[in-house]
């Protein structure tokens, strides 16, 4: 392995032009108490793709996720989703714009049933939902369909807290789907999930992607991410190192050095 010098901060990350981006992140930066956690971060997610966001611990992946979903406000830069600027919008507005997400640590409502957990994630539809009693029935029906899709029908009436960790990940996926997102952001979907359930989760991602849903995924299981993704964005030290197809990323010495703490 030949040692590679760290990327100069000003170097434009090498990335192929993406013809039809659904998400465009441009020069995104954020500071926490003077520390620039993410700086000049730029990448694109092609419409209909499965795009991975990888990088060693502390690279800024989850921070980038939190800025895209409105949980953190960037100090500079722009995030365009389907041509609409997201910076300044609140999390629920971003959900409405068509971005769903799951969290690294699942956030189910433990005392409520599995079904209820999904129903409550239905987007509010204004005044009509207050008047029309039929609306909730419609939402319950959709929640049942989604739970069937992720294979949780058997546990639909159990309190969510009784699910295994992997099942909770599937529950989150079903919940995120309630709002019919165009893009789903998954934060470590495979973390702590047993291999059998991981296959289920992967199959559902592929199936949804074939139906046209775009995915942006943070994940440390490299075998999974490299076989699943169309495009991989590599972050290190708060910056984008490169964006390319998996095979090119895997062969890149700078990427390996970043993982080995040598960049």
């Amino acid at each position: 392995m030949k040692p590679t010098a760290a990327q100069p901060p000003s170097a434009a990350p090498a990335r192929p032009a993406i013809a039809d981006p659904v998400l465009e992140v441009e020069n995104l930066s954020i500071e926490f108490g003077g520390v620039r956690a993410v700086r000049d971060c730029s990448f694109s997610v092609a419409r209909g793709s499965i795009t991975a966001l990888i990088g060693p611990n502390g690279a800024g992946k989850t921070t980038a996720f939190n800025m895209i979903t409105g949980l953190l406000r960037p100090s500079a830069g722009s995030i365009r989703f389907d041509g609409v600027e997201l910076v300044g919008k609140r999390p629920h507005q971003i959900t409405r714009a068509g971005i769903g997400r799951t969290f690294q640590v699942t956030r189910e409502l433990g005392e409520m049933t599995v079904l209820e957990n999904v129903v409550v994630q239905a987007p509010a539809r204004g005044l009509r939902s207050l008047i029309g009693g039929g609306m909730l029935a419609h939402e319950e029906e959709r929640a049942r369909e989604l739970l069937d899709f992720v294979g949780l029908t058997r546990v639909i009436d159990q309190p969510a807290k009784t699910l295994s960790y992997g099942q909770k990940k599937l529950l989150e996926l079903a919940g995120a789907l309630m709002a019919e997102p165009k893009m789903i952001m998954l934060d470590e979907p495979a973390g702590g999930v047993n291999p059998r359930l991981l296959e289920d989760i992967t199959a559902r991602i592929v199936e949804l992607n074939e139906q046209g849903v775009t995915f942006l995924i943070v994940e440390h299981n490299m075998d999974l991410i490299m076989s699943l993704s169309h495009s991989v964005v590599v972050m290190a030290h708060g910056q984008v190192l490169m964006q390319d197809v998996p095979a090119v990323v895997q062969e890149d010495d700078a990427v390996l050095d970043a993982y080995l703490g040598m960049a």
Partner: protein
Amino acid sequence: MALLEIDDVRAGYGSGPDILNGVTIRIDEGRSACIVGPNGAGKSTTLKAVAGLVKVRSGEIRFDGDRIDGLRPDEILRRGVCFVPQDRSLFPDMTVRENLAMAGYSISSKGELQRRIDEALEMFPILAERRTQRARTMSGGQQQMLALARAWILRPRLLLVDEPTMGLAPQVVQEVFAVIQRFRDTGMSVMLVEHNVKEGLGCADWGYVLDLGRNGFDGPSESILANPSVRELYLGKSVARHTEKIL
């Protein structure tokens, strides 16, 4: 017989899944090992299992020939195994000196404790300058030095250090590695988990690569990075080069 023998250990947190799925590690007296591997490999969990902070579900951990899995953390500490956790676990509102005194809580002789505190302050001049400063007001690097000085007070036969350079500036990273080298020079065995793979291995005789809670491969430290499996381990199994329509 090695000083530390970790034999096919399975372990995990609470009722969660196994994080270690059969880890086996040997460290001889006076030798050091660095454990590396991607996120979720089980590196920190291995250290915690040795320190008694994570329950061993199957397999054995022996120290100096005696089983220590199942013992309480304080019992393991008394046998000479000291753990420096990633979060350092200092007493933030106590001064440097008070933190060092707390580290020596189990040393019954007051004179001996005083002597060791003086020695630690001599070994870490930065701490001597700041002996009356509260731990919380110090920089990350200074806090890490204090965490290592606390371990030094106890003169453990085996020191377990979890990611000592996490979040530290490059200059300070070198200082931390220099301290660990000095510990090694005294004959102390060290088991180090470090994400700066190259420099971590430089602090050890033997490298162990863990992957998904199992042993990947191991060997003399200098041989680890030359192993072609390292790339696959960190960046995944090679996928065929393909040009997707989508891009």
